[in-house]
C-alpha cells in the first residue's frame, strides 16, 4: 500500500484487488482503446489534421466493402502469425522483439525453395508450397534460435539481441535482392512460378464471379490453424503449463524440475518459426517474389497485437484483424507517422489501464497535519 504525494491536497492510494470481476478486464481494454483514440485525435487535431475524417477513412478503407475486408484480412495474416509468435514468447516473459527479422528470414528461406531452386521445375504446387512452408518455419526458427542460445548460454538480453538481428536480417535480404537474386538490378527477385503461389479466393472467380478481385489467400487459413494449435499447446499441454510457470517465476519453475534453458531454446525456435511462416505467406501469397520492403513492420505491430490479446492465441486473431485494418488504411493517411503513433498510444493506454486491474485506486483527501516531526522548534 502506498501513498503518492504531490503538491496537491489529496493523494492517490493503490490497494491490491483481492478479487477481479469477470467483466473488468475486457471493459478496461475497451476503455483503454477509447482513451487512446481520443488522445490520438487530440494530437491529430494539434498537427492540423481532422481526426474524425482520419478515423472515418480508416474504417471506410478497411471495412467499407467486401474487397476492403478482403484486403484487411490479407494484412492481418502476417499479423496473426507474428502476433502468435510474440504471444507465445511473452507468456514465458521472453521478450522476442525479433519477429520482424524472423519473418524476413522465413520469407528468404521460402524464396530459396523457388529461386535456388531446391525443387525441380514442374514440381506440383502443393509440394512446392509445402516445402516453402517448412522452409519458412525453419528459416524463422533458426533466426529465433540465435537470441535463444545467446540468452540461455550467456545470459544476453534478448530484446537487444533480437533487435540487432532484425537489422542484420534486413541487410541480409537486401544483399540477396540486390545481389544474387536481383531481377535486372532492381531490389527484387524474379517473380515466382505460379506453382509457388498460395491460392486466392479470386482464383475461383471463374466459377463464382462475386469472388473476382478478392486477394485473401491460403495464408489466412494457415494463420487461423496456427492460432488454434498454439492455443491448444499453451492452454492444454504440459509444455504450455511449463511456459506459464517459467513466465511467472523462473525460480519456482526450476524448483519444480523444469529445464529453463531448454525451454528458452524451444520457445524461441517455435516463436521464430511462426514468424517465419508469416514471411512465407507474404512472399507466396501477396508479393510472389522476394523484395526488401514487403513488410511495413508487421513484426513490431505484432508486439502490440500480442499484448492487446493478453497473450491469448485465439484473441490474437480479432486483434490482428483490427490492426490489419489500421495498417491497410494507414498507407494513405498523412502524415505518414500517424498509424505508428496511434499504436504507441494504444499500447501506453493498455498498460496504464492494467493498474486498475491489479489495484483499487483510491483518492484520499489529505488531512492537514498540525505538527510535523516533533523536534524542538
Amino acid at each position: 500500500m502506498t501513498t503518492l504525494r504531490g503538491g496537491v491536497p489529496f493523494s492517490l492510494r493503490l490497494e491490491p484487488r483481492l478479487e477481479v470481476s469477470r467483466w473488468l478486464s475486457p471493459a478496461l481494454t475497451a476503455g483503454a482503446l477509447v482513451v487512446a483514440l481520443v488522445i490520438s485525435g487530440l494530437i491529430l487535431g494539434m498537427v492540423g489534421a481532422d481526426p474524425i475524417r482520419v478515423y472515418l477513412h480508416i474504417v471506410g478503407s478497411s471495412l467499407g466493402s467486401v474487397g476492403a475486408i478482403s484486403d484487411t484480412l490479407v494484412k492481418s495474416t502476417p499479423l496473426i502469425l507474428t502476433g502468435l509468435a510474440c504471444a507465445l514468447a511473452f507468456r514465458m516473459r521472453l521478450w522476442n522483439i525479433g519477429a520482424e527479422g524472423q519473418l524476413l528470414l522465413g520469407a528468404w528461406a521460402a524464396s530459396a525453395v523457388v529461386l535456388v531452386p531446391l525443387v525441380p521445375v514442374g514440381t506440383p504446387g502443393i509440394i512446392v508450397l509445402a516445402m516453402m512452408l517448412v522452409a519458412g518455419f525453419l528459416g524463422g526458427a533458426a533466426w529465433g534460435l540465435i537470441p535463444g542460445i545467446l540468452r540461455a548460454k550467456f545470459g544476453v538480453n534478448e530484446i537487444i539481441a533480437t533487435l540487432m538481428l532484425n537489422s542484420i536480417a534486413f541487410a541480409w535480404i537486401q544483399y540477396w535482392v540486390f545481389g544474387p537474386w536481383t531481377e535486372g538490378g532492381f531490389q527484387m527477385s524474379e517473380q515466382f512460378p505460379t506453382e509457388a503461389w498460395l491460392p486466392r479466393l479470386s482464383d475461383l472467380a471463374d466459377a463464382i464471379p462475386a469472388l473476382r478481385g478478392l486477394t485473401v489467400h491460403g495464408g489466412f487459413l494457415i494463420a487461423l490453424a496456427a492460432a488454434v494449435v498454439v492455443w491448444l499447446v499453451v492452454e492444454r499441454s504440459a509444455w504450455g503449463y511449463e511456459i506459464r510457470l517459467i513466465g511467472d517465476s523462473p525460480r519456482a519453475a526450476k524448483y519444480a524440475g523444469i529445464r529453463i534453458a531448454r525451454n528458452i531454446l524451444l520457445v524461441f525456435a517455435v516463436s521464430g518459426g511462426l514468424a517465419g511462416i508469416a514471411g512465407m505467406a507474404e512472399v507466396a501469397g501477396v508479393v510472389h517474389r522476394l523484395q526488401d520492403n514487403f513488410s511495413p513492420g508487421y513484426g513490431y505491430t505484432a508486439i502490440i497485437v500480442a499484448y492487446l490479446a493478453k497473450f491469448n492465441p485465439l484473441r490474437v486473431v480479432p486483434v490482428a484483424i483490427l490492426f490489419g485494418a489500421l495498417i491497410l488504411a494507414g498507407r494513405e493517411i498523412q502524415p505518414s507517422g500517424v498509424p505508428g503513433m496511434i499504436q504507441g498510444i494504444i499500447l501506453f493506454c493498455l498498460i496504464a489501464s492494467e493498474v486498475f486491474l491489479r489495484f483499487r485506486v483510491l483518492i484520499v483527501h489529505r488531512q492537514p497535519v498540525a505538527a510535523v516531526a516533533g523536534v524542538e522548534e
Partner: protein
Amino acid sequence: MDLQLIMAAGIAVGTILLFAAVGEILAERAGVINLGVEGMMLIGAVVGYATAVSTGNAWLGVAGAMLAGGLLSLLHAIVTITLRADQVVSGLALTFLGTGLARVLGEGLSKAGAISLLPRFSVPLLSDIPVLGPIAFTEQSILVYVGYLLVPATWYWINRTRPGLHLRSVGEEPAAADALGVSVYATRYRYVFIGGMLSGLAGATITLAVQPGWFGALTVNGRGWIAVGLVIFAQWSPFRAAAGAYLFGAVVQLTLAMQLPPTILGLANPFFQYHANTFFLEMLPYALVLVALVVGSRDAMRKRIGAPAALGIPYVRGERGR
C-alpha cells in the same frame, strides 16, 4: 582512406551513442529500465531540428530537444513508477509512440533548407598532441567536447557525491533508501527525466551537429537500441560506455569508408567490386553489438556483478518486489 579522419568522425558519431547511453545508465542506476531511448532520441532529433529551423538558433534547438526527450520519458516514469506497469512493455510503447510522433511532427521537415549548426572548433594545445590531437580535439562539434566532460562528471556524480549515493541506494535497495528518508519515487522520476533529456540531446546531436537533416525514422536508425545494448556491455559504468560508444562510432565510419576505394592495401576491394557485398558491411556494427553483449553478459555472470539489484522492479513500500 585517411584513418585519422575516420577516427575523428567515429568519435563524433560515438558521441550520439554516448549521450544516450549515459542517460540510460543514470535511469537504470535508479532502478528503471527505459527501453524507449530510440523514441526519445527521435523526438529530440525532430524537436531540436524543427526548433533550430524556426528560430534560427541551434542552441534553442538543443534546449528544446532535451526538454522534449525529458517530457516523453515522464510518460514512462508515470506508467512504471507510479502505476507500476512492466518497464519492458512501457519502454517498447515509448519507442512506438516516440517514433510515430516524431514522424508526425517531422512531416515536411526534410525539405527545410540549410540551418545554422552548433559551433565546431579545435582546442588550443590539445589539438597539437600527436595522433590524439587531430582525432579528438580538431574541428569537433562543441557537443563532442561536452561528451568528454560528461563522462568523468557522471562517474564522479554517481560514486563520489551525496546525490549519487542516494541514486545508487535507490537502484540497489530501495527499501533501505526509503527507510532512511530518501524518496524512492522522486529519485526515480528525476533520473528517468535526466535520462530522457540526455536521449533528447543525443537526438539533437544527430540533427544539429553530426549528421544534420531530418530523414524520418532513419535519422536515428536503431541507434537508441544500440545505446541500450552499450549500457549492458558497459556494466553501468560511464567510462566503459564511452569506450564502447567511440569504438562503435569508429567501426561504423570504417565500414562506410571501406565501400569507397577501388583497392584496399593493394587488394581489390570486394565492396567496391560488387555493390551488394556492402550489405555485409552494414551488418557488421549490429554483429559487433551482439559480440559486445556476449562479452558484457559473460563478464557479469562470471564476476557475479552487474545490473543494479532493483533494476526493473517497481518499488512498493512494505513489500518485497518481484
